[in-house]
């Protein structure tokens, strides 16, 4: 219980720290948000109106008061108004979140389908041809910039073969395939190595030798004995990649014009829409930490040894 409390405290500290940092950056950055807001609304900007807008937005107050007001608003579920969209930030974030979540889920399914069979195959045939092939492709996937891979897939499958749309500005199933595949290839390249390591670790344990000695078939050993033991470390790794997918896929969303949060964030940065940027960073921080937290919880739930330790 004490560990849980510490963990939550650490999460809170991180949230405050990260949001404070973004706030500082927005504060010291060049450009006057009040002027930008007015210009985007095609108002003729006079000193008087500028002053009034600054007061309305609370931009005339000292920095710490501004941050305090913003944080208090967030606690009430109000993250301010987006300058560029003239909508509450929360609304914009939830719009983008649907796209990103969908992309993340499909990517994770692809990752599992690609990396688990390949990882097992390469572990079981260690230092034989299949192992070398899988390791070679894993190396290629890790070294390839994923935005370039995305562009190449777009060029071949979208443009030359015409199988998929080039721009998927609305959420469609067909438009989802290429971005998800791009992300999945990159993630699988990393994941397949880890699957291989985990399976290899298990293969050399005593219980496998015991099972072999009892005359069980290799398939039974693999599916009935090794896989259940390998599930735990794999879940942790997967949880980390979901966090990454929720946050760090801006580049791929831009390449495929996919309407997700990353795409939205990049546009917000270009338009200097600070409330939206601050909201985005906070949102990602919360999502990322929450997922890691859930992964940890599932760990102690799935592992009987840890469960006992908690009770004692």
């Amino acid at each position, binding site marked *: 219980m004490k560990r849980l409390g510490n963990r939550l405290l*650490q*999460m809170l*500290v*991180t949230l405050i*720290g*990260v949001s404070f*940092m*973004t706030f500082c*950056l*927005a504060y010291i*950055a*060049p450009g006057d948000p009040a002027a930008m807001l007015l210009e985007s609304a095609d108002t003729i900007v006079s000193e008087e109106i500028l002053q009034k807008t600054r007061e309305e937005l609370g931009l005339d107050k000292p920095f710490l008061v501004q941050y305090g007001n913003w944080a208090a608003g967030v606690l009430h579920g109000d993250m301010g108004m987006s300058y560029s969209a003239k909508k509450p930030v929360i609304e914009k974030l939830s719009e983008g979140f649907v796209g990103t979540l969908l992309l993340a889920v499909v990517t994770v399914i692809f990752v599992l389908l690609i990396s688990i069979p390949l990882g097992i195959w390469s572990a079981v045939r260690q230092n034989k041809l299949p192992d070398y092939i899988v390791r070679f492709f894993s*190396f*290629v996937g*890790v*070294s*390839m*910039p994923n*935005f*370039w891979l995305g*562009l*190449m897939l*777009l*060029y071949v499958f979208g*443009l030359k073969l015409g199988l998929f749309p*080039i721009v998927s500005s609305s959420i469609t199933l067909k438009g989802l395939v290429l971005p998800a595949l791009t992300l999945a290839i990159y993630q699988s390249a990393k994941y397949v190595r880890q699957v291989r390591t985990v399976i290899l670790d298990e293969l050399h344990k005593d219980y496998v030798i015991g099972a072999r000695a009892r005359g069980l078939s290799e398939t039974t050993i693999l599916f009935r004995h090794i896989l259940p033991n390998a599930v735990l470390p794999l879940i942790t790794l997967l949880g980390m990649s979901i*966090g*990454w997918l*929720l*946050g*760090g896929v*801006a*580049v791929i969303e*831009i*390449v495929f014009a996919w309407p997700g949060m990353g795409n939205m*964030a*990049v546009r917000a*940065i*270009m338009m*200097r829409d*600070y409330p939206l*940027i601050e909201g*985005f*960073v906070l949102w*990602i*921080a919360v999502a*990322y*930490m929450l997922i*890691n937290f859930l992964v940890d919880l599932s760990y102690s739930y799935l592992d009987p040894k840890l469960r006992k330790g908690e009770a004692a």
Partner: protein
Amino acid sequence: MTDFIKRNKLFSIYTALVILIVLVAIFAPYLTPQDPYDGDMKNVLQTPSAEHFLGTDKLGRDTFSRIIAGTQVSLFMTICLVILLSIVGLVVGITSGYFGGKIEMILMRLADMMLSFPGVVLAIAIAGILGGSTVNTILALLIVGWAKYARLVRSLVIKLRNEDFVVAARVNGTKTINILLRHILPNVLPMIVITGAMDIGTMMMEIAGLSFLGFGAQPPTPEWGLMLNEGRQYIQTAPHLMIFPGLAIFIVVAIFNLWGDSLRDLLDPRQE
């Protein structure tokens, strides 16, 4: 020397390739067949030909020359970043690991904060808000990346702090600064060099990614990520503009990754 090469064939091959890339980067201005900045508006968006080995871009600039010149930009930025990461990591890690106390607590809390957050998101926000430039890109990735190095150094220093030779130096009355420089630093350095070397590829890719988004190097700098972004608009008419800069990133990153891995195997035989 020949003995070393014979015993470490792979490492020697990769090192040779790395040296080749570094030489290309250093002598880039002499290796470019045409001016990477000056275009010929009569020859825009040309496909690869004898005169323009990899074609020309929207301003008629020779793509091959720009890729060569880009080696210098990318490599310089990456090396700067990795060196800065190592320095910050060493200073923060040694201070918090050797002295402990309140400084350690504050610094490590900060490090935990950075580690419990997807760095790329913050790097995009920082570089974007500060405005795209080579300096801001390096700064953004430095702010996001130092924590990993600091943590690593600190854990090594904590182990070293109570080793006999360090205790002996302290008992002898050696000045703290000398203990740190002569006893602690040399023992931490190999690990940092390995980590830095293994990170070169990743960092190069992240720098290119930020430039690709428009938050890194600005036109007309011949930076690979930026070139990809510019070429992206001509995906239909001139696909070579996006194929070759990406290929350049891929090849160079792959070589550095291979080199980093083999360097680790060489210097740190404990890890498989």
